[in-house]
């Protein structure tokens, strides 16, 4: 964990109050974001996202599965996060596990919508091959390689990029099957289907330090936070999920204010991310 | 009691609570010499006992038993199993006793209490060997399907005499048990027939296999009483504090016809002589009658 002396803490907080953070950023400025796609050839889609010293990889694997009986018209998505002990020694033990499950839970909240499946960032209906019988199960794995704050935004961006990079093979299903039998399926080797990621939201975490809140906090800044609100916003400006961290309370009006700021920040982030993703995709095609 | 003079003097000066903490044994012996316990009970009397039935709506039968502060919640879930070939027309009872961290400061999450599996085992030995339940009553279709009843007992508050309270809650839960009405479907599986009104697709058309057997007949209901042997005193239904100070515990389980189901004493500094055993059995008989009355009141409503 980051340890700062009292005076350093004071220095960091002072910088935020003066709108000049230790690396020269303003409160709502993100660090440079770099995206690489297709970093894991075995996966159906993958991406690496670096935001300053934070470095994460996300991969998407698609497997044939069976829809749950409660939602026969939808595919399934599972999110797992692994915090590598290389990123920080404390990730090795239970601390890493706890953080991993917390991040996975927050990402699931942001991406998968309500229990009925409505409002999901990933259109689960597209994953169905044959209703009630066959669907795609998406396994999204996130790996934190290096951690310098703002893991959730980075992971959210990496998952978005990995989904944009994902190609799912076309599947042909034998049409007529008896009620209680599994249909035969034929997975194509050549034809692939790109994944529509227009609905995938971006996550903006606003970290409250002192009386101000900042975007894209570094680990040093996070160590000084009183609370942080992670808001996932989709292209249409709707909130797709929200998680608050940190114990201290916030006035309801502050939260509403943060939501509107997050919406604003998300637009720039979304555009930046989209252009980075397309540049990365172009780069990958080139090589 | 031959207390050393120093503490005698101290006790008159000291605060009662402080004396209780520093010289717990002397504190108790003082009371015992006057045939009274710190909670104003006579030696042979059990604490107030309350039983409530049917508190858990997700279970098929449930009961809450409270002896003094000691609280137990027992619930039964009925599931279907294929009976073993040795006893094709018998069901099964699986009993588990839990001590969650809420019940006592000594239990911590991730480290199950030492006492829990032991009490679990004693409960299943006692309930199964008492013959309270005829396992044949749990049969649905001979050789094909029988009930497996999962009895889970949670200790919500541990303040001594855990076994007594657990057994009481278990018995009460069985008396509260309502076996779901079920039918055999085409695939050979047992399915529930939901209550009236509900138009279940095909299950309701089937003949119920257990229309009459909605309740179990309980005979030879066991009741138990734990006593502390200390010097020549016998203290019925000890609290956790008493258990921690005086370590010789005797648990007598008698059934409704005063047959002995279990006489359990494991170690302890005091040896049990015939006279003490007889007194414990007498106390247990008396306690059995009290409990019968408490349970009897429940059966009326």
């Amino acid at each position: 964990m980051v340890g700062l002396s009292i005076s350093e803490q004071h220095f960091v907080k002072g910088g935020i109050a003066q709108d000049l953070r230790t690396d020269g950023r303003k409160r709502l400025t993100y660090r440079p974001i770099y995206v690489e796609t297709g970093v894991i050839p075995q996966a159906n889609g993958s991406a690496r996202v670096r935001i300053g010293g934070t470095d994460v990889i996300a991969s998407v694997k698609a497997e044939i599965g069976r829809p749950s009986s409660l939602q026969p018209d939808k595919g399934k998505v599972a999110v797992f996060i692994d915090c590598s002990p290389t990123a920080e020694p404390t990730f090795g033990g239970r601390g890493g596990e706890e953080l991993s499950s917390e991040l996975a839970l927050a990402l699931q909240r942001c991406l998968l919508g309500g229990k009925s499946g409505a409002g999901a960032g990933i259109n689960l209906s597209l994953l169905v091959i044959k209703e009630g019988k066959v669907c795609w199960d998406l396994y999204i794995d996130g790996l934190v390689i290096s951690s310098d704050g703002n893991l959730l935004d980075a992971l959210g961006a990496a998952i978005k990029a990995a989904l944009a990079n994902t190609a799912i093979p076309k599947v042909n299903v034998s049409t007529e099957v008896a009620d209680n039998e599994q249909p035969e399926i034929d997975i194509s080797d050549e034809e692939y289907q790109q994944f529509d990621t227009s609905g995938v939201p971006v996550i903006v975490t606003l970290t409250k330090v002192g009386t101000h809140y900042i975007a894209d906090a570094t680990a040093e800044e996070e160590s000084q936070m009183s609370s942080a609100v992670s808001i996932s916003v989709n292209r249409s400006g709707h909130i797709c999920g929200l998680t608050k961290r940190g114990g201290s309370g916030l006035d309801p009006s502050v939260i509403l204010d943060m939501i509107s700021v997050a919406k604003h920040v998300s637009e720039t982030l979304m555009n930046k991310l989209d252009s980075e993703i397309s540049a990365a995709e172009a780069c990958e095609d080139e090589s | 009691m031959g207390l050393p003079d120093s503490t005698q003097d101290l006790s008159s000066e000291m605060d009662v609570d402080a004396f209780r903490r520093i010289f717990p044994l002397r504190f108790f012996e003082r009371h015992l010499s006057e045939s009274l316990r710190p909670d104003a009970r006579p030696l042979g009397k059990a604490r107030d006992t309350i039983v409530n039935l049917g508190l858990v709506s997700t279970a098929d039968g449930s009961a809450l038993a409270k002896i003094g502060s000691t609280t137990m919640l027992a619930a039964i879930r009925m599931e279907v199993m294929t009976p073993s070939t040795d006893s094709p027309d018998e069901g099964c009872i699986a009993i588990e006793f839990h001590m969650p961290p809420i019940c006592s400061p000594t239990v911590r999450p991730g480290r199950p209490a030492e006492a829990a599996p032991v009490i679990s085992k004693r409960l299943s030995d006692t309930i199964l060997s008492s013959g309270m339940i005829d396992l044949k009553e749990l049969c649905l279709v001979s050789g094909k399907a029988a009930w497996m009843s999962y009895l889970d007992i949670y200790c919500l508050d541990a303040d001594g005499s855990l076994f007594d309270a657990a057994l009481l809650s278990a018995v009460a839960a069985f008396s509260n048990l309502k076996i779901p009405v079920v039918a055999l479907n085409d695939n050979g599986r047992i399915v529930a027939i939901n209550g009236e009104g509900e138009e279940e697709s095909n299950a309701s058309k089937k003949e119920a296999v257990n229309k009459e057997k909605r309740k179990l007949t309980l005979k030879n209901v066991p009741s138990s009483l734990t006593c502390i042997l200390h010097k020549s005193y016998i203290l019925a239904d000890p609290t956790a504090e008493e258990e921690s100070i005086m370590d010789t515990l005797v648990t007598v389980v008698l059934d409704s016809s005063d047959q002995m189901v279990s006489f359990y004493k494991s170690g302890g500094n005091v040896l049990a002589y015939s006279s003490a055993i007889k007194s414990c059995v007498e106390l247990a008989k008396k306690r059995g009658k009290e409990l019968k009355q408490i349970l009897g009141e429940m059966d009326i409503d």
Partner: protein
Amino acid sequence: MVMRKLELPLSQTQKVRFQTAIERLQSPAEGHGTSEVDDELLATVCGVVVRVDKLVYVRTLRARYKPQVGDIVVGRVIEVAQTRWRVDLNFTQDSFINMHDDNVQKRRTSVDELNMRNIFAEDDVVCAEVGEFHKDGSLILRVRSQKHGKLDKGQLLKVDPYLVKRIKPQFHYIESLGIDLILGCNGFIWVGEHGHVRDPMTKNTRKEQSHTPLETRQTICRIGNAIQVLSNLGFTMTLEVIMETFKLSNTRNIDIHDMLGSEFHVLVTENEAERRHG
């Protein structure tokens, strides 16, 4: 540890400029962690050999500080023990400041031991001199002069230790800017508002702290980012290079935060090539 971040995304023109600059610096593009022996490029540190076009450098797995007696180091207190403080110096062994060090404490009583946190608490940044090696290989630090002691009002940057050469003085007071710069031999660099290092004997007076003036803060940030860029590029840290980079960013009117972008990295490389050849 600061990870090498040379994998900057460069535009086509930036790439070309970067390459030329690197070539001018040292042909065949010898990066840090390498040296030329008998026309052969050898790795001088243990790590992964990385090639960026023609640039060859060795990314060290874990660059650790190798102390020498007399080094000025900057470290962070990680533990307050019975009579001493354990300090993180990025050294393989433990380093300690002893309680009975002359300048820390004249007399030593058991009450002082209880109040050790009043002098240095966990996570405090301290500046000290390497005193001696203990028998077991651990290091004893001295807090001798008035310059040593707890550091206040600034930020700590960590670079690979071999980027900081043992050139005295390591304390710099840049008067024109009102900035203190301490280049610790262990790669820990302190940039902070100028002020006298507080006598460790004086008690922590946390309340009276006020915010650093914005202008000073801007300078601190700019110098901090300059050091960051130099560290990314693997250039040796000296006062001159740091100040030159600082001035370059100022004259080019580069926003403090944009210093960490690709363009400024290329600029600094070009500038360095110019400097060595000019």
